[in-house]
């Protein structure tokens, strides 16, 4: 029974409660950084790390925090991990750090992370919170990578930087520009809803 629950905690974030396609949380980084698959993946992994660490810490200290100041306390926990991620990226992956720019400090206000801290980690034990964070985080990574791949394939004729179209080919430059983000996500949401409504 307990094992079933953990599996459910993990799986719900990927499909049934996918943070992007179903719950529409964390839209700013989703639209802002997915002009290529690599950026999408990088942002996803950075967010996954912050989400996992903050879920662990919040579920550990949940009984020590008075209910009235819990939101500011959660924000401080999240902001500390964001600062760590910011420093790690700057030191080891400067290229990604530059590409993601303002969206790295903005992981703090990503509603997915505060949402999971408030809705799940503050009410459940550490193990469940880890599975919840992994599921939600991987759902987020997948969504960002898919959106990034679609935009990169259509917009620059490449995937993860590997160009597979001849130089002279015309690509839909629209898709790497801001409007393309909205339009690509609109159609991906339609497809995701269609696929999930069939299986259930």
């Amino acid at each position, binding site marked *: 029974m307990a094992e079933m629950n953990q599996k459910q905690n993990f799986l719900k974030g990927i499909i049934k409660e996918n943070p992007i396609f179903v719950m529409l949380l964390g839209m700013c980084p989703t639209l802002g950084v997915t002009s290529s698959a690599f950026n999408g993946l990088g942002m996803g992994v950075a967010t996954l790390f912050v989400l996992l660490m903050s879920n662990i810490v919040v579920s550990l200290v949940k009984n020590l925090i008075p209910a009235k100041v819990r939101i500011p306390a959660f924000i401080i926990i999240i902001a500390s991990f964001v*600062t760590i991620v910011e420093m790690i990226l700057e030191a080891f992956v400067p290229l990604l750090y530059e590409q993601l720019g*303002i969206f790295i*400090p903005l992981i703090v*206000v990503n509603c997915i992370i505060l949402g999971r801290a408030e809705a799940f980690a503050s009410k459940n034990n550490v193990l469940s919170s880890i599975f919840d964070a992994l599921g939600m985080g991987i759902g987020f990574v997948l969504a960002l990578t898919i959106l990034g791949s679609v935009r990169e394939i259509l917009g620059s004729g490449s995937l993860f930087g590997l160009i597979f179209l001849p130089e002279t080919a015309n690509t839909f430059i629209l898709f790497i520009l801001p409007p393309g983000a909205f339009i690509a996500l*609109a159609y991906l949401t339609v497809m995701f809803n269609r696929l999930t409504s069939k299986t259930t």
Partner: protein
Amino acid sequence: MDYIIILIAAVFVNNIVLSQFLGICPFLGVSNKVSTSVGMSGAVLFVMTIATTVTYLLNQYVLIPVGLDYLRTITFILVIAALVQMVEIILKKVSPPLYQALGVFLPLITTNCAVLGVAILALGLENGSLVKAVFFAISNSLGFSLALIVFASIREHLELANIPEGMKGVPINLLVAGLLSLAFLGFTALV
């Protein structure tokens, strides 16, 4: 001249919502009626201006001299969260009508990434000064208001439109936002 360029760039060319993707949550969330979107715009204008003023001064006179600028993210978000609470309390006491109009939107603003985003972006302005940073914040909140109110007016019309089953709800809104963003792309050459 500098200031005119900042204003035009923030409102039209680099519109904070439609080309920089900050503040998408309120943009999609509170845009189903024009009246609520006007209230939200007012609240953003108010908070963004005060938040940028305070964070700019804090960064300039506390964080940099002490050498703690790596703690920028953590201090800024705390200042913004505290500020929103304070504005709410003061407004309630000083101007009840204004509080009535903006009250419900204020708590939502803490998680509005546009406020934190503009506070951080304002530090990177060329030849930055306090006046310039504040002007930058005001321009950006005007850009936010423009995008939000235009989008809300379109959505009011969409309610009467005959939309294909699968596109109803979120997808059609994203598509409309995409077309709006496409229209704003036309301003690119202005600055």
